[in-house]
């Protein structure tokens, strides 16, 4: 009957209840839905970071990350292959690459690029580059002259498939090596910067150009989702000679993104509290108005034998019902919006330049984090009840005579 009474009391003034309910609904909706969008943006950034040749874990020669020159390459790939096969969990994928800075040029343009020598079949399993993202032809491991470049670079060079592109870099003899390639495919990536930066050739073509033999720049590893990359990285570290090799997780490789992620959780929760503060004023105001309007009634209830604590409880019941209703509607609305965007996402192509700068994907798909939904709802229900205590205590503190005399 207490809940029954609270329910009827909140509908005494339907307009006021609707207003505060709307505030709670918008608050919860924005926390859950916009939170999911922000999480989706972060997930997109992580996915981009990992798939843009990073992987979950990378293995390099000691010093390569500080000075990515050809001398800092790994020279014993067969030993590495055996160690990785023994150490990595089932379902893991890995590939080796040759990766050097180079200058690309054609008749009219030149630009600094990163030349990546890949094993085409293996690379397609672990990074963004692969046949499905290629216009034209993807690399074949026996192709010594084909090159795949990004659409942005293609447009910058005003060239097209079938045309020649020359790459220049330093070889193992510290001499300038150059090689002409034929553009066979164009790739598209989430970020324009990726399309400008990377050009892909086969491993054997890179070896020939740079005069390398049995030498690789990096190994990139993707592990199954339910595994902890830090633990696996440390397992690999244990078996590799530390003076020759470095093993890094993506969190260590993409440290700016990692730092941003760490801050992001705190920003989310601060934002939740800020949204609540706006909502909280509405709750306090509405509850106070409802309490003052019913002061005589509280006097009557006290006269009938209601203890002060019971009065507090009855006011809190009303706030609780309002909050629960608002939360239910807000969550439903948020999940409906998330569902509506789950297929096509939000296209931010028109903001691509700016989004690129922050490493944000062109299309954002909302991503629900159960923890965020839980925290958003807990913030609203717990703080909502806490702020309702003030008007409830005001109602309980009046003596019956004072309350009954209230006009």
């Amino acid at each position, binding site marked *: *009957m*207490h809940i029954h*009474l609270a329910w*009827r*009391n909140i509908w*005494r003034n339907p307009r006021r209840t609707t207003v505060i309910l709307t505030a709670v609904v918008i608050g919860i909706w924005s926390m859950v839905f916009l939170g999911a969008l922000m999480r989706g943006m972060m997930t997109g950034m992580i996915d981009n970071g990992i798939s843009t040749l990073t992987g979950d874990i990378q293995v390099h020669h000691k010093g390569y990350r500080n000075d990515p020159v050809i001398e800092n390459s790994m020279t014993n790939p067969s030993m590495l292959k055996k160690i990785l096969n023994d150490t990595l969990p089932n379902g893991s994928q890995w590939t080796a690459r040759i990766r050097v800075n180079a200058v690309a040029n054609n008749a009219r343009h030149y630009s600094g690029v990163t030349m990546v020598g890949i094993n085409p079949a293996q690379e397609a399993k672990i990074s963004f580059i692969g046949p499905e993202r290629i216009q034209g032809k993807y690399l074949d491991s026996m192709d010594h002259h084909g090159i795949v470049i990004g659409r942005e670079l293609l447009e910058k060079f005003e060239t097209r498939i079938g045309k020649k592109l020359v790459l220049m870099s330093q070889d193992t003899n510290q001499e300038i090596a150059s090689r002409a390639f034929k553009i066979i495919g164009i790739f598209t990536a989430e970020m324009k910067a990726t399309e400008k930066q990377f050009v892909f050739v086969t491993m054997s073509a890179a070896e020939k150009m740079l005069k390398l033999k049995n030498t690789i720049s990096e190994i990139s590893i993707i592990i199954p989702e339910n595994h902890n990359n830090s633990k696996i990285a440390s397992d690999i570290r244990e078996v590799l000679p530390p003076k020759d090799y470095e093993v890094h997780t993506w969190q260590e490789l993409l440290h700016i993104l990692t730092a941003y992620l760490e801050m992001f959780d705190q920003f989310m929760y601060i934002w939740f509290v800020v949204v609540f503060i706006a909502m909280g004023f509405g709750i306090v105001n509405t509850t106070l108005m409802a309490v003052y309007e019913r002061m*005589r*009634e509280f006097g*009557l*209830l*006290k*006269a*009938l*034998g*209601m*203890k*002060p*604590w*019971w009065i507090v409880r009855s006011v809190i019941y009303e706030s609780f019902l309002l909050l629960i209703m608002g939360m239910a509607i807000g969550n439903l609305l948020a999940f409906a919006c998330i569902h509506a965007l789950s297929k096509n996402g939000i296209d931010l192509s028109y903001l691509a330049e700016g989004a690129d700068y922050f490493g944000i994907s062109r299309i954002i798909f909302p991503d629900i984090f159960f923890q965020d939904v839980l925290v958003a709802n807990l913030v609203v229900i717990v703080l909502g009840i806490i702020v309702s205590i003030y008007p409830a205590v005001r109602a309980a503190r009046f*003596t*019956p*005579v004072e309350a*009954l005399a209230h006009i």
Partner: protein
Amino acid sequence: MNIVECTEINKTYQQGKVEVQALRGISLNIKKGGFIALAGPSGSGKTTLLNIIGGLDHADSGTVNVDGQSFDKMNQSQLANLRLHSIGFVFQSYNLIPVLSAAENVEFVMLLQGIPAAERQGRARTILDDVGLKDKYDRRPAELSGGQQQRVAVARAIVSNPSIVLADEPTANLDSKTGQGLLEMMKKMNVEKKVTFVFSTHDQMVMDYARRLVLIHDGLIDNDLVKKN
């Protein structure tokens, strides 16, 4: 046996900068089963005395005992408990909870007492039948006349068998016919169920019905008349 014992009750109110002495050392004993009217003009102190007897207000000095319990060292919660179990109230206006039906209003006190739902509902309906409100169980207060609302209030006041019912000007907002009906009903309750009724009133009809009439003037008992049956 006295159900109420008041000794040397003093009460002063502050009205702005003026102190108003509402009660000046009033002593009053009320026997169980009484039907008493505290009468007097407005401002005489009758409602203040009724509120003090009901534990709604506290005396500045003096002692109050209701149903053998002294108010001296009781806190708000203990007073609320005493009101819940031993005292019934009927007010002049705003007597009922507007969002509850007649039956739910009657049930409410029993709910606070922790009586199970089935028993509450049965007793509420029986008492509403007794006060002549059969078929009005589900009406909200706004759907009842003033007299019917007061009957619901009386039903609520007596449903949990309190030791005493305090009624503050219960007929003030009713026409004389309805007021008379209400008084007849309360008299019947008094006779049949031995419920003690104490009224504060300046309504002559209530004074006529009362078996004992305590006249209060300027915070003092002017006269204490016990009528012969």
